[in-house]
C-alpha cells in the first residue's frame, strides 16, 4: 500500500552525513589547488613585479626589457657606497674613476642588464614554430578528416600521432639535435667536414650536404614544431569534424569542388577551434626548455638577436637566448644571492606576462571569429 505520509522526512535525510563529508572533501581539495596556484603566482608577482614596475613615471622599467643581458658587478667605492653595475656600465665607471680604488668586488653572471635577448628569442622561437606547426598540422588534419578513407591504416596513423603527444620533451630535444642540428640537408658550396653525405648539384660548386642546420633558430623552431604537431593535428581534426556535414553537402551540391568546399565551407568555420587549440600549444612552446637546449638556445650572447646580421637568413641560422632557458640558467648555473634575485624573479615575471598576453590575444581572436559563426 502507498502511504503518502512516508513522503515526509523524519529527521535527517538518508546519507546526509556522507554527502556532507564528500562535499567538504571535494571542496577542500579544490581550494587547496587554488591555494597552491595563488601562492605560486603571488610569490612571483610580489617579488617579480617590482623589478619591472617602478613607483615613479614612466612606471615601467623599460631598461630591463630592452637592455641586453650582462654580468653584474657589485662593489664598494672609497666612500663605502655599494654599486651594482652591469659589465658595460662597470667598465665606464672604471674608466671615469681611474686611480680610485674599489673594494669587495664580486661578479654575478647573467644577472645584470636586461633580458631583451631572451624575450626576443622566445618570441622568434614561438612565432617560427607556430607557423611551421600550424601549416603542417592543419594540412595533415585536413587530409585525415576530409580526404583519407577511414581505413584501419588511417586509424593507425591517427593513433601514432596521438602517441607522439606523450613523448617527453627532452626526447624531442635529442631528436631535433640529431636530425635538424646534425643531419638535414643544406645547399652550400663549402660542405662541413662532418657532412654525412654530399650530393653534387652541378651548379658551380654547390652541393647538397647532409650536415644539419647547426644549433640555430631554424633548428629550434623545427624541433618545437615537431613537439606540438600532435596537439595541433588532433585538435584541428576535431574542429574540422565539428563543422556540420550539411555545409559540405550543400557546398558540393552547389557545384563546388572538394578543395573549394574545404576552403570556403569547412576551414573558415573550424578556424576558431583550431586557434583555441593552438593557444594551448603557444604557451607550451614558449615555456619549453628541453627541446631548445641542444637545438637553439645559448645562455649568453654578446649581441641582441637583430644585431650583427648580414641577411635575414643569418637570423634563422643564429643561436638565440630564450626566456625559459634563461630562467633555468639563472636558477641552476649560478649561485643565488640577493643580487641575482632581481634577474631571477624579473625574468619569471616577464615570462608570465608574455604568456598571459599571448593567451589573451588568441582568446580575443577566437571570440571575435566565433561571434560571427554560430550554428
Amino acid at each position, binding site marked *: 500500500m502507498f502511504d503518502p505520509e512516508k513522503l515526509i522526512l523524519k529527521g535527517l535525510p538518508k546519507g546526509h552525513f556522507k554527502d556532507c563529508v564528500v562535499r567538504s572533501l571535494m571542496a577542500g581539495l579544490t581550494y587547496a589547488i587554488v591555494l597552491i596556484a595563488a601562492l605560486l603566482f603571488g610569490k612571483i608577482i610580489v617579488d617579480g613585479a617590482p623589478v619591472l614596475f617602478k613607483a615613479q613615471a614612466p612606471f615601467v622599467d623599460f631598461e630591463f626589457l630592452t637592455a641586453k643581458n650582462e654580468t653584474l658587478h657589485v662593489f664598494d667605492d672609497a666612500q663605502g657606497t655599494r654599486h651594482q653595475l652591469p659589465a658595460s656600465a662597470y667598465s665606464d665607471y672604471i674608466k671615469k674613476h681611474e686611480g680610485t680604488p674599489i673594494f669587495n668586488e664580486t661578479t654575478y653572471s647573467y644577472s645584470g642588464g636586461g633580458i631583451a635577448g631572451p624575450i626576443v628569442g622566445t618570441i622568434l622561437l614561438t612565432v617560427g614554430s607556430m607557423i611551421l606547426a600550424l601549416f603542417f598540422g592543419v594540412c595533415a588534419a585536413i587530409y585525415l578528416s576530409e580526404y583519407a*578513407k*577511414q581505413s584501419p591504416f588511417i586509424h593507425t596513423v591517427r593513433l601514432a600521432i596521438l602517441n607522439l603527444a606523450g613523448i617527453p620533451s627532452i626526447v624531442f630535444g635529442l631528436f631535433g639535435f640529431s636530425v635538424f642540428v646534425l643531419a638535414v640537408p643544406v645547399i652550400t658550396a663549402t660542405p662541413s667536414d662532418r657532412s654525412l653525405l654530399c650530393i653534387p648539384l652541378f651548379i658551380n660548386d654547390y652541393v647538397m650536404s647532409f650536415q644539419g642546420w647547426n644549433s640555430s633558430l631554424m633548428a629550434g623552431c623545427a624541433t618545437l614544431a615537431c613537439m606540438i604537431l600532435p596537439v595541433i593535428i588532433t585538435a584541428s581534426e576535431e574542429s574540422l569534424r565539428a563543422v*556540420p556535414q*550539411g*555545409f*559540405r*553537402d*550543400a*557546398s*558540393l*551540391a*552547389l*557545384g*563546388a*569542388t572538394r578543395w*573549394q568546399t574545404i576552403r*570556403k*565551407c569547412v576551414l573558415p*568555420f573550424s578556424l576558431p577551434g583550431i586557434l583555441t587549440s593552438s593557444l594551448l600549444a603557444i604557451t607550451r612552446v614558449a615555456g619549453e626548455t628541453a627541446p631548445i637546449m641542444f637545438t637553439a638556445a645559448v645562455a649568453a650572447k654578446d649581441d641582441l638577436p637583430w644585431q650583427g646580421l648580414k641577411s635575414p637568413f643569418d637570423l634563422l641560422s643564429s643561436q638565440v637566448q630564450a626566456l625559459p632557458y634563461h630562467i633555468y640558467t639563472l636558477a641552476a648555473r649560478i649561485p643565488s644571492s640577493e643580487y641575482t634575485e632581481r634577474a631571477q624573479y624579473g625574468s619569471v615575471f616577464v615570462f608570465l606576462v608574455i604568456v598571459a598576453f599571448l593567451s589573451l590575444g588568441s582568446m580575443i581572436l577566437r571570440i571575435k571569429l566565433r561571434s*560571427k*559563426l*554560430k*550554428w
Partner: protein
Amino acid sequence: MDTAIEIQNLTFAYSGKQVLHDVTLDIPVRQVTAFIGPSGCGKSTLLRCFNRINDRIPNAKVTGGSIYVHGIDINRSDIDLQELRRRIGMVFQKYNPFPKSIYENVAFSLRLAGLTKRTQLNEIVENALQSAALWDEVKDRLHSSAFGLSGGQQQRLCIARAIANQPEILLMDEPCAALDPLATLKIEELIYELKKQYTIVIVTHNMAQATRCSDRTAFMYLGKLIEYGPTMQIFETPKEAQTEAYVTGTFG
C-alpha cells in the same frame, strides 16, 4: 512529354548491402514527381544518385543500370561533376544555410563560378530570392546572418541558393520534414510556382503533401519501385495491393 531523368534498371549498394533493386522510371520535364514510401525504402538514396552526391559516402556505389539526365549517362567516368551539380540543384531535409549573410549564401555558387561584378551579383541574388518567395521578407537585412531567419525562411533561402545556379532540375529531400505546417504550406506554394520553370523531384514522408503538390508519384518499398503513375491514380486507384495498403494507412 519530355523526359528529364531516365532511370534504367538501377541497383545501388552501401558496402555490399543492396539498397536499390532494379529501379526503372522516367521523370518528366517541368512537373513535380514525388517519391513516397516508409523510412529506409531507398527513396532518398535514389534521389541522391541524380546529382551523384552519394559519391562522397565511402563504399556506396551504383552496381548496375544507368541514369540518363536529358539523354546523358551521368555515371560515365568523364562527367563534369561540378557542372552536373550546377544543373541539378538540391535542397536537403535539414535546412543548411552557411553561417554567412543571407546575401553571401545566395551568392555562394556565383562566386564559385568566378562572378565578381556587383551589379550582376545583386541582380541574380534578388531574382533567386524573389523566385524563392523570400525577397520581401529579407530585402532590408540581406547582410545579416542567415541564422537569424526562421526555419521556414532558412529552407527557402536554401532553395534560393540552389536556384541562383539556374539549374534545370531541383531535387528536394524531404524539404518540409523539419518545418511547422505554416512553413510547409509556403514551401508547397513555392513548389507549385517553381514547377513552371524547373523539373522538381521531391522525397516526402507526408502523403498529403504528395497529393497536394505532385503531378506523378512513385511508391517505393524495401528498395524496389512498387508503383509509379499520376498522383491521382496512385492515391485513388492503386494497382498494387502494397501501394493501396500504404496510401490508405493500413501499414507504414
